[in-house]
């Protein structure tokens, strides 16, 4: 059986965002391609760099180093318009190609552990992005200002990072 999804015009697949309990965030989305393709777009820096930061965001990804293997490191540097950049970085705790990536978020004091899984739905992929914070307080802090969405927050974090 061959099925071809109409590529042009169709609405994007829905994205679900859910807070579970007092420490977890879960985002799910189906992609019309097999896990190896979605994994590739996530694990190759040149590809990753092209989608991780939305064009509408007031920040840009100026550099992106990804060493996608268990124990490898990543470092993303964002620009907020001025000369200074700010970095997000951590370690890949577990990498199972085409299936699962787990990483730490070490730029803050109580960073979340993020897990992405790619589940094969027969040619399509169910992607689950899961973040677990070390404490309810850490999630509460993240609740108060999303670092990814708010440039002000980014600048504040930038200051913190400089002091480290």
């Amino acid at each position, binding site marked *: 059986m061959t099925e071809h999804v109409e590529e042009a015009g169709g609405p*994007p697949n829905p994205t679900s965002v859910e807070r579970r309990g007092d420490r977890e965030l879960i985002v799910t989305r189906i*992609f019309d391609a097999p896990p190896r393709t*979605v994994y590739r777009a996530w694990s190759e820096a040149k590809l990753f760099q092209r989608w*991780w930061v939305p*064009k*509408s965001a007031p920040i840009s990804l100026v550099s992106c180093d990804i060493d996608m293997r268990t124990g490898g490191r990543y470092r993303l540097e964002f620009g907020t318009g001025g000369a200074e950049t700010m970095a997000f970085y951590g370690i890949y705790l577990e990498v199972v190609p085409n299936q699962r990536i787990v990483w730490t978020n070490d730029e803050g004091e109580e960073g979340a552990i993020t897990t992405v899984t790619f589940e094969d739905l027969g040619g399509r992929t169910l992607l689950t992005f899961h973040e677990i914070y070390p404490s309810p307080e850490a999630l509460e802090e993240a609740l*108060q200002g999303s670092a990814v*969405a708010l440039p002000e927050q980014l600048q504040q974090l930038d200051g913190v990072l400089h002091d480290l």
Partner: protein
Amino acid sequence: MVQCLPHTLDLSFAALADATRRGIIVRLGRGDASISSLAEAFQMTLTGMKKHVQVLERAGLVVTQKVGRVRTCRLGARGLAAEAEWIEAHRALFEARFAALDDIIDEIEEGSHD
């Protein structure tokens, strides 16, 4: 006196319909702030900021207290607003990300055909 009337919900929706007021909620989530520092942060007049804060205060989202000549604002007990904001911010972010990822995936798939 704070009254827990049903229309509080309507008031908070109206209060949060405005981008500046959503910004104020997020800002206060990081710590209490005076009206004048909020006005400065959002680049608006003191009078303009007072109006925004009043709307948030009526909805129970913000509580203010005057000490001397400074009126300090903090988040009200209704912290749910911050949670809803956070969820929405993540949804918007991931929707935009994944739309771009769709394009990259199409590219890879097209390139992989012999």
